[in-house]
Every structure is written in structure tokens, then in C-alpha cells.
């Protein structure tokens, strides 16, 4: 083909893996260029017409997605070496060939799809909720100052996407560190006036093996977080809280929460 008639294409190198135990390999794709594409619309194009660069028919690439507006976290993957959401990864802003890999910190289900269950299990472990159920109406809880609400809103933006775990050098197969996201959720729920009534239970959960102490302060999480959550500030504040809790546990204290 001569340059004059050559169609503009988008080049991809995509991690393929048939199932969780299969050997991974890379497959190259070239799809016709359209303006304003994101990685997901490009993947949809491959699904519509599943032929690789060599022209061989292949299986469509498997990936996860949900909201398509960077609030659900499902479509996270490693794009050109950095973990991020594929819905907000605009093709025009990416260097080609665009290299897509799954976040291998999590078990790979197939191709770009991973199983993020460990994050949801972690949220259960640290009790990232506010218990309000009872046998009778407890009435309204204490009021939250508006400034504090605005601050807490930033922490509540966490969408459990897993990018911070993928970026953290201490979250890996050799360590059982829980990772930054669930830690910051403890800070969120402990800051809530009703949530604060169970503050020490959450701190206690963070002091178990694989908890807060696994942080090594590389601070990659705060760099990587797509929502700009101050994860390292949360971690340091929780260090302060758990240390006090440790002293209370050891020396005994009449301060319950």
C-alpha cells in the first residue's frame, strides 16, 4: 500500500489470556481511525470486527466496563504502563502503539478483565459502613458540620477501582497488605458523626495482619488515584489513630470510642 492511499489507523498491543491459568501473550491490532475515540470505543471496534493486525480472525477482547464516565471503576486497566480507567483514556492523547494490560495485582479472569473481589472483601473487613439498624427508630443522628462534609466528600469519591493497589509496591503476591483504598475508607467512616460511634472497631481491624502497617510510604497511591483522594494523608492520620489505640489496648483505657 502506498502512503497516499494509506488509511489512518490506531495501533494496539493487547494482553490476551484465555482464562485465569492460561499463558498470556500479546496480540496486535490496527483499527481505522475515528476522531475522539476512547480506549473502550476502540475495544468495541475490535469486538465488532475481531481481526488482528495480520488479518487473522481472533476472539474478541474481553474487558469490564460500567458507567463510562469514570465513577464506577470497573474499566480500570494498565494503559501504556499506567493503571487508569479506559473510559477516560482518550486515544488522541495516547502514544501508539497503545499497550493494554490487565491490572495483574488482581487475578486475571480473561484478557483485560480482572477479579477485584479482594477490595470488596477488604471493605467488609474494615467495616466500611455505618451501622444504624435497630429494633426501634433511633431518631436523627448528630449533625455534621458543612465544612467537614465537604472534606469527607472528597474521600467518598473512591470507586474501588483498584488503581492505587496496582500502583503500590507493597501490594503483591509476597505481601498481604490490604492497600490504600480501604484504609482511606476507614478515615471516611470514622469522620462521620454516627460512624464515629464505632471508630475503635475499624481501627482494630486495621491493626490486624495485612492491615495499615503494611504501608511503606512510597506514596504512589496518591499519584495514581484518578479521583485525587488524599490517600497518604489518610494513612498518616490513621497511623496516629491506631498508635493511640495501641497504647489504649496495652495500658488499658476507659475511653471506649
Amino acid at each position, binding site marked *: 500500500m502506498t502512503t497516499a492511499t494509506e488509511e489512518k489507523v490506531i495501533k494496539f498491543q493487547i494482553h490476551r489470556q484465555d482464562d485465569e491459568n492460561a499463558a498470556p501473550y500479546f496480540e496486535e491490532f490496527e483499527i481505522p481511525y475515528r476522531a475522539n475515540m476512547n480506549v473502550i470505543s476502540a475495544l468495541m471496534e475490535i469486538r465488532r470486527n475481531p481481526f488482528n493486525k495480520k488479518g487473522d480472525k481472533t476472539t474478541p477482547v474481553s474487558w469490564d466496563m460500567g458507567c463510562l464516565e469514570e465513577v464506577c471503576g470497573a474499566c480500570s486497566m494498565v494503559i501504556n504502563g499506567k493503571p487508569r480507567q479506559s473510559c477516560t483514556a482518550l486515544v488522541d492523547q495516547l502514544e501508539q502503539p497503545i499497550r493494554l494490560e490487565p491490572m495483574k495485582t488482581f487475578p486475571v479472569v480473561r484478557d483485560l478483565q480482572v477479579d477485584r473481589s479482594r477490595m470488596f472483601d477488604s471493605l467488609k473487613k474494615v467495616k466500611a459502613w455505618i451501622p444504624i439498624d435497630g429494633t426501634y427508630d433511633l431518631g436523627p443522628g448528630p449533625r455534621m458540620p458543612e465544612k467537614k462534609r465537604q472534606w469527607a466528600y472528597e474521600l467518598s469519591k473512591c470507586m474501588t477501582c483498584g488503581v492505587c493497589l496496582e500502583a503500590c509496591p507493597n501490594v503483591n503476591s509476597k505481601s498481604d497488605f490490604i492497600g490504600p483504598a480501604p484504609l482511606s475508607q476507614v478515615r471516611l467512616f470514622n469522620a462521620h458523626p454516627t460512624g464515629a460511634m464505632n471508630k475503635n472497631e475499624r481501627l482494630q481491624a486495621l491493626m490486624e495482619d495485612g492491615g495499615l502497617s503494611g504501608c511503606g*510510604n512510597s506514596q504512589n497511591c496518591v499519584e495514581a488515584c484518578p479521583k485525587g483522594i488524599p490517600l*497518604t494523608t489518610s494513612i498518616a492520620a490513621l497511623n496516629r489513630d491506631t*498508635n493511640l489505640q495501641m497504647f489504649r489496648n496495652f495500658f488499658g483505657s476507659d475511653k471506649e470510642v
Partner: protein
Amino acid sequence: MAENREFYWRRLHSLLGVIPVGIFLIQHLVVNHFATRGEQAFNDAAHFMESLPFRIFLELFIIFIPLYFHAIYGVYIAFTAKNNTRRYGTLRNYMFFLQRITGVITLIFVTWHVWETRIQAALGADVNFGMMEAILANPWMVAFYILGVVSTTFHFANGLWSFMVSWGITVSARSQKISTYATLGIFVVLTIIGIRSILAFV
């Protein structure tokens, strides 16, 4: 190890790195600096340290037990990390990486240094200016000692930074930035003291 003890081990590891090991490091570097005032001054200072009462207990509880607990547990911590400075080339990620590298270098250096001085003293050698002069007559040993001292002072200064985070002293991003500069200053000062002492024997 019993279950759910990791938090306490990690806090103990963080504490011992500064108190007493870090404090001992400063004291050791300061006493060594007498070497810049000549052979007699160094020998007098070394002799004073040697003749402290309860010496063996001071050495065990202020130096060897906390130091080797910190070192051995630290090697375990270092090997549970999966470094990714190529993906995230930020200052703090490099510091994280260097903290683990210098920890291992420092352990090798300190163990060698203890063998060459304290163990030899226990076997009857006299630890004095002449001994260090003889060791540092070899240019490779000068290089090894400089590497060892720089690695130790870096590990201490940067460790002080993460100590302040681990104990919840520096919480905000700004306080952590200020402590980065402060500990960088500590690194520079201690390194100058250490290298001046080494060069005094050369």
C-alpha cells in the same frame, strides 16, 4: 509468630530504628569526628567510650539487640516489596526503593565493621587510631567505608522521615514535604561528619 502481631512488630521496628539505633549512630559519628583533631584526641575519646561502666550491657541493649532486630526484620520488609520506580519515577517512590537498598548495604557494612573492630577487640586487639589507619590504608576499604557511611546516613535520615509518618507526627502533605527537606539536611550534615572522620585516617 502469633497472629495479628505484625502491627506491633512494624511499630517496634520503626521505633528502634530511631531510638536507640539512630541516636547511637549520631553519637558514634560525633565521637569518630575526634579523629579530625589528631591521633591523641581520637584515642582519648575512644578510650573514654570503652571505659564506660556496664559497657557490655550498654552495647547489647542500645546497639546490638535493637540493631539486629531492626536489620533482620528490615530485610524481610525489603523483600516483600515489588519495586516499580520505572512506572512511577517520583521522589518518594525512589526514596522507598533506596531505603530498602541502603538498608541491605548498611547491614553488610555494619556487620563487616563490627567484625573488624568490636569482635577483634573482644579477641584482644586494641581499637585505636592505628587500627583504623591500617584498615583504611587500602583504597578499596576507603571506598567501602564511604559507601557504607553514606548508605547508613541516608537510611537513617530517610528513615526518620517515614518514622514521623508511621507515628502520625507528620500527617499533612505540607508537613511531609517540610520533613523531606529537614531530613535531607540531616543526611547532608551527618554525611559530612562521617566522611571527614574517614578521611582523617587516610
